[in-house]
């Protein structure tokens, strides 16, 4: 009950903040790039707020609980991705002064077709990323309040659409900054209070010793909606369908739907693909071989770092800084804010393994963050803390979905619509952005409604792999190499996207089991990114004659602001921003 109020408060607060920011969004530049006037701290909080999606708020804790400490490399890779963005992309990207990612592609390479290609990839990546956010919102609302699945999807879709249409990038920046601090508070406070209440970590033998998850002293009853294939990590006994059964260590069993009961201290069966090792191995971040071996860890790190570098909704945020140096300072602050947030998910996975073994039976480790507070602290305090994390999770869906929709709306209205028919002045351009914010949400909502029963976690991995294999090489070479040509970039992005997609679908189709091949197929970045780079360089060298004027491009990318080269820098500033009277004077 409290949780309903908490979720409603976040929703109303977000909507209120969004509506309040309408008056801030007057110009086209406000809608697309927040008039490039966002200060480092605000922007850093907004970037972090946008980036910390449900995958970070709920997913990391769930994955660590399920797979073991090896999943702790995920937040490390996510954060390291921002460090590489800082080193190679942040300042030049801002200095170039585009409106959208596709804008950059066309202006840098002097080819209108690059805009179309880039726009298509932006829509693909953001779409794949948006659907799981909506699905997560539906499931969370269902678990927390008992509301039907479609309600959460429609509510989040509607609110995000409205906020983006009203406030554009400028409004969303404030909403996301607010949501970053809300999320951090919502994950940090319960973690700290629970640890104080419990007097440290419970069941340390299960966590770090030779123990496996076991039923609590008063037994464990789990309700299964459908039959579940499980593995017993140790010898155990259980009651299913009213009949008592014995299980050997390592035995695979298919539990029937209905009630499953385990008596006190019985070893808990784990749903498929959970880590069945005892605590001492479960808590080891890397092993010398096998599915948690160094190959898996390195390919995971490379995939997350390069993927983060190519995510269009992240890249577009760098345009909102006032200048290149501010973009750098913003990114350093992002590193600090992510550090703060990522301290806490691991607390939930440790508490979850110790106190919520039932989630292993159903395989719903993803909801560990939502469930742990009530299990660890029975009664009202636990319910209050549970409501707080539910509110934080909802803020995560809202802020990430908002950022994605800003990217989608910008691409739809400016890169695609603008090509079909030129906008008639600034008023028309703003109208189109707002219309796109409404239209761009329709398809993702429909897909999310249809995907209620499907495991769509693969979509985010796919989005990351495509981002890593297309935009990451395009930006790195486009910024630092004079020789990149439009045919080279197009060929490299196509090869990268095809190889990444092919690998992921092969992995889904043939189920290679654990091992080196599996890590390659689920994280193809290790192969597809070098291939994309090689293709870009080779084709660019072969089409040397089509090199754009490198001197002007280098000046626009790398010359620091304040040289009095205003006219020259503006050569690359998109037409929409040179609208004259409606655009505020840039100082």
């Amino acid at each position, binding site marked *: 009950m409290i949780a309903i109020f908490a979720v409603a408060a976040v929703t109303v607060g977000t909507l209120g903040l969004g509506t309040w920011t309408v008056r801030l969004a007057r110009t086209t530049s406000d809608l697309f790039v927040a008039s490039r006037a966002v200060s480092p701290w605000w922007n850093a909080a907004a970037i972090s707020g946008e980036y910390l999606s449900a995958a970070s708020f709920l997913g990391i804790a769930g994955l660590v609980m399920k797979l073991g400490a090896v999943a702790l*490399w995920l937040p490390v890779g996510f954060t390291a991705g921002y460090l590489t963005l800082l*080193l190679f992309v942040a300042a030049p990207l801002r200095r170039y002064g585009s409106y959208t990612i596709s804008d950059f592609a066309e202006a840098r390479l002097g080819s209108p077709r690059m805009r179309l290609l880039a726009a298509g990839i932006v829509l693909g990546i953001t779409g794949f990323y948006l659907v799981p956010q909506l699905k997560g919102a539906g499931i969370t609302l269902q678990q927390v309040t008992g509301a039907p699945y479609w309600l959460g999807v429609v509510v989040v879709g509607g609110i995000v659409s409205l906020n983006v249409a009203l406030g554009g990038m400028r409004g969303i920046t404030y909403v996301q900054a607010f949501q970053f601090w809300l999320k951090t508070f919502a994950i940090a406070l319960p973690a700290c209070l629970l640890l104080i209440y419990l007097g440290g970590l419970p069941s340390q033998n299960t966590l770090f010793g030779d123990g496996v998850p076991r039923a609590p002293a008063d037994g464990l009853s789990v309700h299964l909606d459908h039959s579940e294939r499980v593995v017993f990590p140790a010898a155990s006994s259980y009651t299913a369908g009213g009949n008592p059964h014995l299980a050997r260590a390592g035995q695979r069993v298919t539990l029937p739907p209905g009630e499953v009961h385990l008596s006190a201290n019985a070893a808990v069966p784990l749903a498929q693909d959970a880590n069945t090792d005892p605590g001492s191995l479960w808590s080891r971040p890397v092993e010398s071989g096998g599915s948690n071996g160094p190959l898996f860890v*390195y390919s995971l790190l490379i995939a997350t770092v390069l993927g983060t570098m190519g995510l269009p909704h992240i890249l577009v945020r760098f345009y909102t800084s006032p200048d290149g140096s501010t973009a750098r300072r913003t990114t350093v602050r992002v590193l*600090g804010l992510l550090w703060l947030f990522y301290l806490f998910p691991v607390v939930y996975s440790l508490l979850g393994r110790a106190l919520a073994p039932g989630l292993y039976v159903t395989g719903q480790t993803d909801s560990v963050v939502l469930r742990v507070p009530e299990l660890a602290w029975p009664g009202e305090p636990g319910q209050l803390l549970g409501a707080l994390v539910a509110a934080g999770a909802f803020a995560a869906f809202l802020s990430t979905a908002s950022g994605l929709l800003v990217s989608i709306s910008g691409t739809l209205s400016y890169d695609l619509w603008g090509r079909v028919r030129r906008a008639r002045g600034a008023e028309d351009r703003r109208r189109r952005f707002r219309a796109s914010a409404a239209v761009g949400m329709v398809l993702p909502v429909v897909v999310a409604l249809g995907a209620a029963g499907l495991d769509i976690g693969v979509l985010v991995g796919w989005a990351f792999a495509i981002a890593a294999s297309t935009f990451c090489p395009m930006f790195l070479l486009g910024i630092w190499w004079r020789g990149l040509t439009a045919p080279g970039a197009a060929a490299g992005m196509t090869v990268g996207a095809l190889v990444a997609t092919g690998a992921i679908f092969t992995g889904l189709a043939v189920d290679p089991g654990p091992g080196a091949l599996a890590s390659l197929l689920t994280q193809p970045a290790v192969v597809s990114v070098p291939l994309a780079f090689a293709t870009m360089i080779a084709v660019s060298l072969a089409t040397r004659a089509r090199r754009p004027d490198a001197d002007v491009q280098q000046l626009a990318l790398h010359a620091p602001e304040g*040289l009095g080269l205003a006219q020259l820098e503006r050569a690359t500033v998109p037409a929409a921003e040179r609208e004259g009277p409606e655009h505020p004077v840039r100082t």
Partner: protein
Amino acid sequence: MREEGRGGRRRTPRDELAEATAHGDVYLRRLVRAQLALSISALVAFIGLLGALPLLLILVPHLASVSIVHIPLPLLLVAVPLFPLFVAIGWTYQRRADALDEAFRELVGRP
């Protein structure tokens, strides 16, 4: 941020362009090279540290038997110290990169 031409004289865009393509271009190449070298050295430092950690954890299995506040050291090493390290590398890089930009500004803005 943008300044008018120095000494109160307002220069036309053509002057600026001429200056930029004549000797400004040489300086710009030098700046881009210096920035790239700085970024790559920071990248090497960060890849070295991050990349060494999984190897360290495998090659020194003894670390697993060390616990701090009851938590095994390998878990702590992944969960905590990398993040402040990233911030430190990022902060150092940002200061140096801004300093390079500033030096370039002085060079080109010379009367």
